[in-house]
């Protein structure tokens, strides 16, 4: 009888443990992010944003007052201010959009490369990599006059990426030596077309030699009344949806203000292969 009771007890404990493990597994939250190159022009009351995808529809990160949001880069920590978090349901996943004031930094042009965004609360610390973030606080760099501007996107390795800019310049400019979105992309001005392409293109139809990965700026462009398609290259392919544009024209730097090239919420399913898992450190005491 005693043996039977022990067996029943062991079975009950094992069963309970199995249920508990199963529950923990199903209730485990996961977070993903899409590696992106982000760039903003600093002005007071401007916002920057970061996107995180999660299986949780009620993540603690929604409750701003319970979290601290900071960027860590090398030994520096930058606390994000006026943070708000919005959530949008996307198919079977939830997109959290973290919006905060653009950092006011004492530099005209500052770049975070491989920095980290940390969100800490009583439950966990989320750490995710900011692959590239640049902030332009224009002082000597002048605003450019552009008569027409929009981006062209093409599928690269299965996902839609910004591959070029369609531009018609203002009258005051002569020679373009460099153009870059967020000071991240590089320009190959030898492949410029003197007409515009569409929003969604197959870049190889127009420029068969195009290779999105390239490190160096090449060539220059004599600016005329024409409209141009200027292809963009990336040192490492990172998704770009918005950003400022930096120009080197007639040996002077100009910028076009932060602009959205594409205004969709990026669907997790469309970029699934490129999503990276966010590191979670539980028991944050």
């Amino acid at each position, binding site marked *: 009888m005693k043996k039977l009771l022990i067996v029943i007890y062991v079975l009950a404990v094992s069963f309970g443990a199995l249920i508990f493990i199963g529950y923990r597994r199903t209730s485990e939250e996961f977070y993903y992010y899409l590696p992106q190159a982000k760039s903003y022009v600093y002005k007071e009351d401007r916002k920057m944003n970061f996107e995180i995808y999660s299986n949780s529809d009620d993540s603690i990160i929604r409750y701003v007052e319970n979290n601290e949001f900071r960027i860590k880069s090398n030994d520096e920590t930058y606390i994000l201010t006026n943070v708000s978090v919005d959530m949008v349901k996307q198919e079977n996943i939830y997109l959290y959009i973290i919006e905060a004031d653009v950092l006011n930094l004492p530099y005209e042009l500052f770049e975070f490369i491989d920095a980290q965004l940390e969100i800490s609360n009583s439950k966990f610390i989320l750490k995710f990599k900011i692959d590239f973030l640049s902030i332009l606080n224009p002082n000597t760099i002048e605003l450019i006059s552009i008569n027409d501007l929009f981006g062209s996107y093409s599928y690269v390795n299965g996902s839609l990426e910004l591959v070029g800019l369609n531009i018609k310049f203002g009258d005051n400019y002569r020679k373009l030596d460099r153009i870059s979105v967020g000071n991240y992309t590089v320009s190959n001005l030898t492949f410029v077309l003197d007409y515009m392409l569409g*929003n969604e293109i197959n870049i190889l139809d127009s420029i068969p030699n195009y290779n999105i990965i390239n490190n160096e700026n090449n060539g220059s462009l004599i600016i005329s009344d024409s409209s141009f398609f200027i292809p963009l290259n990336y040192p490492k392919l990172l998704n770009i949806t918005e950003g400022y544009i930096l120009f080197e024209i007639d040996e002077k730097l100009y910028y076009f203000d932060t*602009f959205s090239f594409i205004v*969709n919420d990026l669907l997790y399913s469309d970029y699934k292969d490129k999503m990276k898992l966010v590191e979670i450190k539980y028991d944050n005491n």
Partner: protein
Amino acid sequence: MKKVIFLIVIYMFISIFPIFINIDAATTEYNTFSEIMMPEGKLLSNFTNEELKEMYKHVERTTGWGVNVYKENSNVDASYISNTLYSVENKGATEVKYKIEVEVETSNKVSFNASGSLNGSASGTTKGGVKGEIGAKCGVEVSNTTTKSRIEKQKLEIIVEPNSRAIIYLTGSLSVTNGVAAYYVAFIQVCKGGFEIVTLKNQYARVEKALI
């Protein structure tokens, strides 16, 4: 016998009732676009009465219960130009830097539009409603509730030359499925009309200047 008839009447009433409520449930945001360019086929609003009559022949065959759908255009890719998001004019003699704020809705949306007596019936019910059934038969998920979308405010500074106008608008791609549908309850045609499902795929911003 009376009880049975009474129960059948009650059952039919309960079944039909939900399709007559929430008339404004159909969302037709794409109707506000200034232009939709379809390489083939046309939009529901451009169908003539004769064309609709011809299409109705495909849905006259009664189905016991549910929606009978005929697709004239199925997932036809098209492009669009939205209305102007922002417009600013400089009528002066010198260039001006304008600080502008643009609001853009960033969501992937499915819009449903209907005509004829179907228009008042394309509402949401717990089972998906007429709208949901038509969507299912067309292979498009049409939500009964308004999809939450995000309004993104973007502030930017732009130079506008003398006698020029700068505008910001959206262009993009969408897909169109349209045709006609008839809804049957116990072999009785309750309503019929044209329908259109428009799925917004991508939205791209464009800034453009022109002389006044």
